Protein backbone atom coordinates (compact mmCIF):
# COMPACT_ATOMS: atom_id res chain seq x y z
CA UNK A 1 0.00 0.00 0.00
CA UNK A 2 1.24 3.44 -0.86
CA UNK A 3 0.15 6.85 0.29
CA UNK A 4 -3.01 8.01 -1.51
CA UNK A 5 -3.72 11.61 -2.44
CA UNK A 6 -7.01 13.42 -2.62
CA UNK A 7 -6.57 15.13 -5.99
CA UNK A 8 -9.16 17.79 -5.17
CA UNK A 9 -6.78 19.35 -2.66
CA UNK A 10 -3.33 20.61 -3.58
CA UNK A 11 -0.40 18.99 -1.80
CA UNK A 12 1.38 21.24 0.71
CA UNK A 13 4.41 21.95 -1.43
CA UNK A 14 6.23 25.08 -0.33
CA UNK A 15 8.12 27.19 -2.85
CA UNK A 16 11.58 26.01 -3.83
CA UNK A 17 14.35 28.21 -2.59
CA UNK A 18 17.92 28.61 -3.64
CA UNK A 19 19.36 26.22 -1.04
CA UNK A 20 17.15 23.25 -1.93
CA UNK A 21 16.66 23.71 -5.69
CA UNK A 22 19.34 21.21 -6.69
CA UNK A 23 17.69 18.43 -4.71
CA UNK A 24 14.32 18.84 -6.46
CA UNK A 25 15.85 19.34 -9.89
CA UNK A 26 17.62 16.04 -9.28
CA UNK A 27 14.47 14.13 -8.36
CA UNK A 28 12.71 15.47 -11.46
CA UNK A 29 15.44 13.65 -13.45
CA UNK A 30 15.07 10.61 -11.15
CA UNK A 31 18.39 11.20 -9.45
CA UNK A 32 18.68 11.39 -5.66
CA UNK A 33 21.31 13.95 -4.71
CA UNK A 34 22.34 15.44 -1.40
CA UNK A 35 24.51 18.40 -0.54
CA UNK A 36 28.13 17.39 0.07
CA UNK A 37 30.94 19.62 1.31
CA UNK A 38 33.70 20.01 -1.27
CA UNK A 39 36.29 20.65 1.43
CA UNK A 40 35.73 17.85 3.95
CA UNK A 41 33.25 15.57 2.14
CA UNK A 42 30.52 15.78 4.82
CA UNK A 43 27.02 14.94 3.57
CA UNK A 44 24.50 17.57 4.64
CA UNK A 45 20.71 17.29 4.76
CA UNK A 46 18.61 19.40 4.86
CA UNK A 47 20.85 21.61 2.72
CA UNK A 48 22.64 24.55 4.31
CA UNK A 49 24.48 27.62 3.09
CA UNK A 50 27.70 26.18 4.54
CA UNK A 51 29.10 22.93 5.96
CA UNK A 52 28.21 22.56 9.67
CA UNK A 53 31.43 20.57 10.23
CA UNK A 54 34.22 22.56 8.54
CA UNK A 55 32.18 25.71 7.81
CA UNK A 56 33.16 25.83 4.15
CA UNK A 57 30.80 27.47 1.66
CA UNK A 58 32.15 25.20 -1.11
CA UNK A 59 29.52 22.54 -1.74
CA UNK A 60 28.11 20.33 -4.48
CA UNK A 61 25.09 18.16 -5.24
CA UNK A 62 26.47 14.63 -5.00
CA UNK A 63 24.62 11.48 -6.12
CA UNK A 64 23.36 9.14 -3.39
CA UNK A 65 23.53 5.37 -3.79
CA UNK A 66 19.79 5.47 -3.03
CA UNK A 67 19.99 2.81 -0.33
CA UNK A 68 19.29 3.06 3.38
CA UNK A 69 17.32 1.68 6.31
CA UNK A 70 14.16 2.76 8.14
CA UNK A 71 15.26 4.76 11.19
CA UNK A 72 11.76 5.52 12.49
CA UNK A 73 8.19 5.82 11.24
CA UNK A 74 4.72 7.11 12.13
CA UNK A 75 1.33 6.01 10.81
CA UNK A 76 -1.49 8.53 10.56
CA UNK A 77 -4.84 6.87 11.21
CA UNK A 78 -6.57 10.23 10.82
CA UNK A 79 -5.53 12.62 8.09
CA UNK A 80 -4.15 15.94 9.37
CA UNK A 81 -4.47 17.51 5.89
CA UNK A 82 -7.14 17.13 3.17
CA UNK A 83 -4.57 16.25 0.49
CA UNK A 84 -3.60 12.99 2.19
CA UNK A 85 -5.90 9.99 2.57
CA UNK A 86 -5.50 8.17 5.90
CA UNK A 87 -4.26 5.72 6.89
CA UNK A 88 -0.77 6.42 5.62
CA UNK A 89 2.74 6.09 6.99
CA UNK A 90 5.67 8.48 6.98
CA UNK A 91 9.16 7.06 7.34
CA UNK A 92 12.49 8.54 8.35
CA UNK A 93 15.12 6.82 6.23
CA UNK A 94 18.78 6.78 7.21
CA UNK A 95 20.74 6.73 3.96
CA UNK A 96 23.98 4.76 3.64
CA UNK A 97 25.66 8.18 3.24
CA UNK A 98 24.58 8.97 6.82
CA UNK A 99 21.97 11.64 6.13
CA UNK A 100 18.29 11.09 6.97
CA UNK A 101 15.28 11.85 4.81
CA UNK A 102 11.54 11.99 5.53
CA UNK A 103 9.61 9.99 2.91
CA UNK A 104 6.93 7.37 2.27
CA UNK A 105 7.21 3.67 1.51
CA UNK A 106 5.51 2.15 -1.50
CA UNK A 107 3.99 -1.34 -1.53
CA UNK A 108 4.32 -1.78 2.23
CA UNK A 109 1.50 -1.88 4.76
CA UNK A 110 2.03 -0.10 8.09
CA UNK A 111 2.26 -3.44 9.93
CA UNK A 112 5.06 -4.48 7.57
CA UNK A 113 7.34 -1.57 8.55
CA UNK A 114 10.15 -2.11 11.06
CA UNK A 115 13.12 -0.13 12.24
CA UNK A 116 16.29 -1.26 10.46
CA UNK A 117 14.39 -2.49 7.39
CA UNK A 118 16.56 -2.03 4.25
CA UNK A 119 14.99 0.20 1.60
CA UNK A 120 15.91 1.76 -1.75
CA UNK A 121 14.75 4.90 -3.50
CA UNK A 122 12.05 5.01 -6.19
CA UNK A 123 10.70 8.12 -7.87
CA UNK A 124 7.05 9.17 -7.90
CA UNK A 125 6.18 11.83 -10.50
CA UNK A 126 3.22 13.27 -8.64
CA UNK A 127 2.94 16.45 -10.76
CA UNK A 128 4.51 17.89 -13.90
CA UNK A 129 6.88 19.95 -11.81
CA UNK A 130 7.34 17.73 -8.75
CA UNK A 131 8.85 14.29 -8.27
CA UNK A 132 8.99 12.86 -4.77
CA UNK A 133 11.71 10.40 -3.76
CA UNK A 134 10.00 7.45 -2.08
CA UNK A 135 11.31 4.09 -0.91
CA UNK A 136 10.57 0.41 -1.25
CA UNK A 137 11.60 -2.56 0.83
CA UNK A 138 14.67 -4.41 -0.45
CA UNK A 139 14.87 -8.19 -0.33
Amino acid at each position, binding site marked *: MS*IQYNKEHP*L*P*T*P*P*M*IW*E*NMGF*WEGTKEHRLVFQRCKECGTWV*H*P*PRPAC*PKCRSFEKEWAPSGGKGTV*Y*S*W*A*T*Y*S*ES*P*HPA*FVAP*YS*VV*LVEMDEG*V*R*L*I*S*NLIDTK*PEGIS*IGMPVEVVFDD*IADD*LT*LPKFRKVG
Partner: protein
Amino acid sequence: MNNISNKAAIVGIGFSGFSKDSGKTELHMICECIKAALDDAGLVPPDIDGIVKHSDDATDEHSVTSSRGMGNLTYFGENRWNGAPCAMVLRAAIGVTTAAANYVVIYRAVNEASKRRMRGSSRNMAQLDTGDLLQWTYHAPFGLVSEAGRVAMIVRRYMHEYSINSDQFGWVTTVCREHGAKNPDGIFYGKPITMKDYLESRIIVDPIRELDCHEETDGAIALIITTAEKAEKLKQKPVYIRGATQSQVAGTEERKGFYRPAISDLPEMKHMGERLFAMAGVNPRDIKVAQLDDSFAPLVPMQLEELGFCDRGEGTAFCDGGNRIRVGGELPLNTSGGCLGEGHIYGVNHVLEAVRQIRGTSSAQVSDADLVLVASGAGGSTSGLILGGSR
Protein backbone atom coordinates in the same frame (compact mmCIF):
# COMPACT_ATOMS: atom_id res chain seq x y z
CA MET B 1 28.82 33.23 40.38
CA ASN B 2 27.93 36.57 38.84
CA ASN B 3 24.52 35.85 37.35
CA ILE B 4 20.86 36.66 37.95
CA SER B 5 20.32 33.80 40.42
CA ASN B 6 18.27 35.01 43.42
CA LYS B 7 18.26 38.60 42.18
CA ALA B 8 14.76 38.67 40.70
CA ALA B 9 11.34 37.37 41.68
CA ILE B 10 7.85 36.77 40.33
CA VAL B 11 5.57 39.09 42.28
CA GLY B 12 2.22 39.07 40.52
CA ILE B 13 0.06 36.54 38.66
CA GLY B 14 -3.08 36.97 36.64
CA PHE B 15 -4.92 34.43 34.54
CA SER B 16 -8.19 33.96 32.74
CA GLY B 17 -10.32 30.90 33.24
CA PHE B 18 -9.25 28.34 30.64
CA SER B 19 -12.00 27.18 28.30
CA LYS B 20 -12.91 25.92 24.83
CA ASP B 21 -14.26 29.38 23.89
CA SER B 22 -13.19 32.51 25.71
CA GLY B 23 -15.73 34.65 23.88
CA LYS B 24 -13.13 37.43 23.93
CA THR B 25 -10.19 38.65 21.90
CA GLU B 26 -6.66 37.80 23.04
CA LEU B 27 -6.07 41.51 23.70
CA HIS B 28 -9.09 41.71 25.97
CA MET B 29 -8.05 38.60 27.89
CA ILE B 30 -4.51 39.80 28.36
CA CYS B 31 -5.62 43.22 29.61
CA GLU B 32 -7.77 41.53 32.23
CA CYS B 33 -4.86 39.28 33.21
CA ILE B 34 -2.47 42.20 33.56
CA LYS B 35 -4.99 44.00 35.75
CA ALA B 36 -5.29 40.91 37.93
CA ALA B 37 -1.50 40.51 38.13
CA LEU B 38 -1.05 44.18 39.11
CA ASP B 39 -3.74 43.89 41.79
CA ASP B 40 -2.12 40.68 43.01
CA ALA B 41 1.26 42.38 43.35
CA GLY B 42 -0.04 45.65 44.73
CA LEU B 43 1.14 47.66 41.72
CA VAL B 44 -0.55 50.07 39.31
CA PRO B 45 -0.31 50.19 35.48
CA PRO B 46 2.24 53.07 35.31
CA ASP B 47 4.67 50.93 37.37
CA ILE B 48 5.12 48.58 34.39
CA ASP B 49 8.00 49.69 32.18
CA GLY B 50 8.86 46.38 30.51
CA ILE B 51 7.01 43.76 28.46
CA VAL B 52 8.18 40.37 27.22
CA LYS B 53 5.77 38.55 24.93
CA HIS B 54 5.65 35.50 22.69
CA SER B 55 6.35 36.04 19.01
CA ASP B 56 3.28 33.99 18.00
CA ASP B 57 0.96 35.93 20.29
CA ALA B 58 -1.73 37.84 18.40
CA THR B 59 -1.23 40.97 20.51
CA ASP B 60 1.53 43.55 20.60
CA GLU B 61 3.10 45.60 23.34
CA HIS B 62 1.74 48.87 21.93
CA SER B 63 -1.93 47.92 22.13
CA VAL B 64 -1.44 46.30 25.53
CA THR B 65 0.33 49.39 26.91
CA SER B 66 -2.34 51.73 25.52
CA SER B 67 -5.25 49.58 26.63
CA ARG B 68 -3.99 49.24 30.19
CA GLY B 69 -2.96 52.88 30.67
CA MET B 70 0.65 51.96 31.28
CA GLY B 71 3.47 54.47 31.15
CA ASN B 72 6.57 54.54 28.98
CA LEU B 73 8.36 51.26 28.30
CA THR B 74 12.13 51.05 28.55
CA TYR B 75 12.47 47.31 27.86
CA PHE B 76 10.49 45.06 25.53
CA GLY B 77 10.95 42.09 23.27
CA GLU B 78 9.73 38.63 22.48
CA ASN B 79 10.71 34.98 22.59
CA ARG B 80 9.88 32.26 20.09
CA TRP B 81 8.62 28.71 19.89
CA ASN B 82 7.62 26.16 22.48
CA GLY B 83 10.73 26.78 24.55
CA ALA B 84 9.69 30.37 25.22
CA PRO B 85 7.88 30.34 28.59
CA CYS B 86 10.84 30.02 30.97
CA ALA B 87 12.97 32.06 28.57
CA MET B 88 10.47 34.93 28.85
CA VAL B 89 10.98 34.89 32.62
CA LEU B 90 14.76 34.83 32.10
CA ARG B 91 14.51 37.81 29.76
CA ALA B 92 12.38 39.71 32.26
CA ALA B 93 14.84 38.88 35.06
CA ILE B 94 17.74 40.15 32.95
CA GLY B 95 15.78 43.36 32.37
CA VAL B 96 15.13 44.08 36.02
CA THR B 97 18.51 42.98 37.38
CA THR B 98 20.34 45.23 34.91
CA ALA B 99 17.95 48.14 35.68
CA ALA B 100 16.78 48.25 32.08
CA ALA B 101 13.31 48.21 33.64
CA ASN B 102 11.77 48.12 37.10
CA TYR B 103 8.71 45.92 36.63
CA VAL B 104 8.38 43.65 33.62
CA VAL B 105 5.18 41.88 32.64
CA ILE B 106 5.32 38.69 30.59
CA TYR B 107 2.19 37.32 28.97
CA ARG B 108 0.67 34.78 26.61
CA ALA B 109 -2.89 34.81 25.29
CA VAL B 110 -4.30 32.22 22.91
CA ASN B 111 -7.68 31.43 21.40
CA GLU B 112 -6.50 28.09 20.09
CA ALA B 113 -9.70 26.14 20.75
CA SER B 114 -12.23 28.62 19.38
CA LYS B 115 -9.86 29.79 16.62
CA ARG B 116 -10.93 33.37 17.27
CA ARG B 117 -8.17 35.14 15.37
CA MET B 118 -4.95 33.49 16.36
CA ARG B 119 -1.50 33.77 14.94
CA GLY B 120 1.18 31.09 14.85
CA SER B 121 -0.31 27.76 13.88
CA SER B 122 -2.25 29.43 11.09
CA ARG B 123 0.85 30.94 9.49
CA ASN B 124 0.95 30.21 5.81
CA MET B 125 3.94 29.07 3.83
CA ALA B 126 4.71 32.53 2.47
CA GLN B 127 5.30 33.73 6.02
CA LEU B 128 7.78 31.01 6.91
CA ASP B 129 11.41 31.99 7.25
CA THR B 130 14.14 30.24 5.30
CA GLY B 131 14.93 27.72 8.02
CA ASP B 132 11.29 26.65 8.33
CA LEU B 133 10.98 26.46 4.54
CA LEU B 134 13.93 24.11 4.29
CA GLN B 135 12.19 21.76 6.69
CA TRP B 136 8.73 22.03 5.22
CA THR B 137 10.07 21.30 1.78
CA TYR B 138 11.25 17.95 3.05
CA HIS B 139 8.37 17.05 5.39
CA ALA B 140 5.03 18.39 4.19
CA PRO B 141 4.91 16.76 0.72
CA PHE B 142 5.20 13.37 2.43
CA GLY B 143 2.27 14.06 4.76
CA LEU B 144 4.29 14.88 7.88
CA VAL B 145 2.34 18.03 8.60
CA SER B 146 1.39 17.90 12.28
CA GLU B 147 3.08 18.25 15.65
CA ALA B 148 1.63 14.88 16.67
CA GLY B 149 3.37 13.30 13.65
CA ARG B 150 6.71 14.84 14.56
CA VAL B 151 6.41 13.55 18.11
CA ALA B 152 5.24 10.12 16.89
CA MET B 153 8.41 9.78 14.80
CA ILE B 154 10.63 10.61 17.79
CA VAL B 155 8.65 8.45 20.23
CA ARG B 156 8.72 5.41 17.91
CA ARG B 157 12.51 5.51 17.96
CA TYR B 158 12.59 6.07 21.72
CA MET B 159 10.35 3.01 22.22
CA HIS B 160 12.62 0.98 19.96
CA GLU B 161 15.85 1.94 21.71
CA TYR B 162 14.58 1.37 25.25
CA SER B 163 12.09 -1.49 24.63
CA ILE B 164 9.09 0.58 25.75
CA ASN B 165 5.45 -0.28 25.12
CA SER B 166 3.36 2.77 24.22
CA ASP B 167 0.72 1.77 26.82
CA GLN B 168 3.21 2.85 29.49
CA PHE B 169 2.84 6.53 28.53
CA GLY B 170 -0.72 6.41 29.84
CA TRP B 171 0.33 7.03 33.44
CA VAL B 172 1.47 10.54 32.51
CA THR B 173 -1.94 11.55 31.17
CA THR B 174 -3.78 9.74 33.94
CA VAL B 175 -1.86 11.61 36.66
CA CYS B 176 -2.09 14.97 34.83
CA ARG B 177 -5.85 14.53 34.53
CA GLU B 178 -6.02 13.48 38.19
CA HIS B 179 -4.32 16.77 39.13
CA GLY B 180 -6.32 18.74 36.58
CA ALA B 181 -9.58 17.35 37.96
CA LYS B 182 -8.85 19.27 41.19
CA ASN B 183 -8.17 22.56 39.39
CA PRO B 184 -11.30 24.74 39.17
CA ASP B 185 -9.67 27.02 36.57
CA GLY B 186 -8.75 24.19 34.18
CA ILE B 187 -10.82 22.73 31.38
CA PHE B 188 -10.87 19.23 32.93
CA TYR B 189 -12.05 20.23 36.40
CA GLY B 190 -13.88 17.29 37.90
CA LYS B 191 -13.02 15.10 34.90
CA PRO B 192 -10.31 12.58 35.80
CA ILE B 193 -9.57 9.62 33.53
CA THR B 194 -8.46 6.08 34.22
CA MET B 195 -5.77 3.99 32.58
CA LYS B 196 -8.61 2.11 30.87
CA ASP B 197 -9.81 5.37 29.26
CA TYR B 198 -6.28 5.99 28.02
CA LEU B 199 -5.90 2.53 26.52
CA GLU B 200 -9.27 2.86 24.78
CA SER B 201 -8.55 6.32 23.34
CA ARG B 202 -8.15 6.34 19.58
CA ILE B 203 -4.84 6.34 17.77
CA ILE B 204 -4.20 9.69 16.06
CA VAL B 205 -0.82 8.93 14.57
CA ASP B 206 0.63 5.65 15.76
CA PRO B 207 2.09 5.44 18.43
CA ILE B 208 0.37 8.67 19.61
CA ARG B 209 -3.15 8.34 21.03
CA GLU B 210 -5.71 11.09 21.44
CA LEU B 211 -5.08 11.11 25.21
CA ASP B 212 -1.34 11.63 24.64
CA CYS B 213 -2.10 15.04 23.12
CA HIS B 214 -2.58 18.42 24.77
CA GLU B 215 -6.07 19.88 24.66
CA GLU B 216 -6.56 22.99 22.53
CA THR B 217 -7.54 25.83 24.82
CA ASP B 218 -8.53 29.49 24.99
CA GLY B 219 -6.88 31.39 27.81
CA ALA B 220 -4.34 33.94 28.95
CA ILE B 221 -1.74 34.43 31.66
CA ALA B 222 0.30 37.42 32.85
CA LEU B 223 3.19 37.39 35.32
CA ILE B 224 5.09 40.35 36.80
CA ILE B 225 8.81 40.19 37.57
CA THR B 226 10.96 42.64 39.51
CA THR B 227 14.14 42.62 41.57
CA ALA B 228 14.33 40.60 44.79
CA GLU B 229 14.69 43.83 46.80
CA LYS B 230 11.58 45.41 45.32
CA ALA B 231 9.72 42.10 45.59
CA GLU B 232 10.21 42.03 49.34
CA LYS B 233 8.24 45.29 49.69
CA LEU B 234 5.19 44.08 47.72
CA LYS B 235 1.96 42.33 48.70
CA GLN B 236 2.78 38.68 47.98
CA LYS B 237 5.44 36.29 49.19
CA PRO B 238 8.20 36.65 46.57
CA VAL B 239 8.85 33.69 44.31
CA TYR B 240 12.58 33.93 43.71
CA ILE B 241 14.19 32.99 40.41
CA ARG B 242 16.93 30.66 41.63
CA GLY B 243 17.90 29.55 38.15
CA ALA B 244 16.83 30.40 34.60
CA THR B 245 18.48 29.12 31.42
CA GLN B 246 17.86 28.50 27.75
CA SER B 247 19.39 25.93 25.43
CA GLN B 248 19.68 25.29 21.77
CA VAL B 249 22.19 22.67 20.70
CA ALA B 250 24.17 22.49 17.48
CA GLY B 251 23.06 20.35 14.57
CA THR B 252 19.33 20.52 15.07
CA GLU B 253 16.23 22.09 13.57
CA GLU B 254 13.51 23.72 15.59
CA ARG B 255 10.92 21.14 16.63
CA LYS B 256 11.96 18.79 13.84
CA GLY B 257 15.14 17.26 15.16
CA PHE B 258 15.21 14.34 12.73
CA TYR B 259 18.79 14.80 11.67
CA ARG B 260 20.75 14.80 14.90
CA PRO B 261 22.75 11.78 16.04
CA ALA B 262 19.95 10.20 18.12
CA ILE B 263 16.40 11.52 17.72
CA SER B 264 15.31 9.76 20.92
CA ASP B 265 17.47 12.19 22.94
CA LEU B 266 16.45 15.65 24.12
CA PRO B 267 19.97 17.16 24.09
CA GLU B 268 18.67 20.68 24.76
CA MET B 269 16.90 19.46 27.88
CA LYS B 270 20.08 17.80 29.17
CA HIS B 271 22.21 20.86 28.41
CA MET B 272 19.62 23.22 29.91
CA GLY B 273 19.17 21.09 33.03
CA GLU B 274 22.87 20.83 33.81
CA ARG B 275 23.29 24.60 33.64
CA LEU B 276 20.05 25.20 35.53
CA PHE B 277 20.99 23.02 38.51
CA ALA B 278 24.49 24.54 38.62
CA MET B 279 23.07 28.05 38.58
CA ALA B 280 20.57 27.33 41.36
CA GLY B 281 23.17 25.34 43.33
CA VAL B 282 20.83 22.38 43.84
CA ASN B 283 20.42 18.78 42.66
CA PRO B 284 17.48 16.97 41.07
CA ARG B 285 16.72 15.31 44.42
CA ASP B 286 16.23 18.76 46.03
CA ILE B 287 13.31 19.54 43.69
CA LYS B 288 9.92 19.10 45.39
CA VAL B 289 7.65 19.58 42.37
CA ALA B 290 8.30 19.75 38.63
CA GLN B 291 6.21 21.21 35.81
CA LEU B 292 7.42 19.53 32.61
CA ASP B 293 6.45 20.00 28.97
CA ASP B 294 3.47 17.69 28.57
CA SER B 295 2.24 18.93 25.22
CA PHE B 296 2.51 15.22 24.36
CA ALA B 297 2.62 12.66 27.18
CA PRO B 298 5.64 10.60 25.95
CA LEU B 299 7.85 13.70 26.18
CA VAL B 300 7.53 13.59 29.98
CA PRO B 301 9.54 10.41 30.70
CA MET B 302 12.16 11.59 28.21
CA GLN B 303 12.52 14.84 30.18
CA LEU B 304 12.74 13.01 33.52
CA GLU B 305 15.74 11.17 32.08
CA GLU B 306 17.50 14.14 30.49
CA LEU B 307 17.03 16.32 33.58
CA GLY B 308 18.64 13.65 35.76
CA PHE B 309 15.60 12.57 37.79
CA CYS B 310 16.22 8.99 36.62
CA ASP B 311 18.54 7.05 34.30
CA ARG B 312 18.20 6.92 30.51
CA GLY B 313 15.43 4.57 29.50
CA GLU B 314 13.93 4.56 33.01
CA GLY B 315 11.46 7.42 32.55
CA THR B 316 8.39 5.31 31.85
CA ALA B 317 9.24 3.00 34.77
CA PHE B 318 9.46 6.13 36.95
CA CYS B 319 5.89 7.07 35.89
CA ASP B 320 4.54 3.50 36.08
CA GLY B 321 1.51 3.26 38.37
CA GLY B 322 1.62 7.02 38.90
CA ASN B 323 2.62 6.90 42.57
CA ARG B 324 5.97 8.65 42.22
CA ILE B 325 4.59 11.49 40.06
CA ARG B 326 1.29 12.30 41.78
CA VAL B 327 0.91 14.60 44.78
CA GLY B 328 2.33 12.69 47.73
CA GLY B 329 4.95 10.96 45.58
CA GLU B 330 8.67 11.68 45.39
CA LEU B 331 8.35 14.06 42.42
CA PRO B 332 4.82 15.31 41.77
CA LEU B 333 4.52 16.49 38.17
CA ASN B 334 2.28 19.07 36.53
CA THR B 335 0.17 19.70 39.59
CA SER B 336 -2.25 22.06 37.83
CA GLY B 337 -2.85 19.35 35.24
CA GLY B 338 -0.44 20.93 32.75
CA CYS B 339 -1.17 20.92 29.03
CA LEU B 340 -2.85 17.51 29.33
CA GLY B 341 -5.06 18.28 32.31
CA GLU B 342 -5.41 22.06 32.74
CA GLY B 343 -5.15 23.58 29.27
CA HIS B 344 -2.66 24.34 26.52
CA ILE B 345 -1.35 27.83 27.24
CA TYR B 346 1.88 26.70 25.63
CA GLY B 347 3.61 26.02 28.94
CA VAL B 348 3.14 29.47 30.47
CA ASN B 349 0.56 27.76 32.69
CA HIS B 350 3.44 25.62 34.01
CA VAL B 351 5.26 28.75 35.23
CA LEU B 352 2.01 30.00 36.79
CA GLU B 353 1.55 26.71 38.63
CA ALA B 354 5.13 26.79 39.93
CA VAL B 355 4.36 30.19 41.48
CA ARG B 356 1.15 28.86 43.05
CA GLN B 357 3.03 25.89 44.53
CA ILE B 358 5.59 28.14 46.19
CA ARG B 359 2.86 30.46 47.47
CA GLY B 360 0.98 27.41 48.78
CA THR B 361 -2.13 28.16 46.71
CA SER B 362 -2.20 25.24 44.24
CA SER B 363 -5.34 23.15 43.92
CA ALA B 364 -3.03 20.15 44.24
CA GLN B 365 -0.65 21.59 46.80
CA VAL B 366 2.58 19.79 47.67
CA SER B 367 3.74 20.31 51.25
CA ASP B 368 7.04 22.23 51.61
CA ALA B 369 7.12 23.09 47.91
CA ASP B 370 10.04 25.46 48.34
CA LEU B 371 11.91 24.46 45.15
CA VAL B 372 10.02 23.97 41.90
CA LEU B 373 11.46 23.17 38.48
CA VAL B 374 9.79 24.20 35.22
CA ALA B 375 10.85 23.02 31.77
CA SER B 376 9.53 24.27 28.45
CA GLY B 377 10.08 23.13 24.90
CA ALA B 378 11.00 19.43 24.86
CA GLY B 379 12.56 18.52 21.53
CA GLY B 380 13.60 21.94 20.28
CA SER B 381 14.61 25.28 21.72
CA THR B 382 14.32 24.71 25.44
CA SER B 383 14.25 26.80 28.60
CA GLY B 384 13.95 26.09 32.28
CA LEU B 385 13.46 27.66 35.67
CA ILE B 386 14.08 26.74 39.26
CA LEU B 387 11.87 28.88 41.48
CA GLY B 388 12.23 29.09 45.23
CA GLY B 389 10.41 30.41 48.27
CA SER B 390 13.67 31.66 49.76
CA ARG B 391 16.99 32.84 48.41
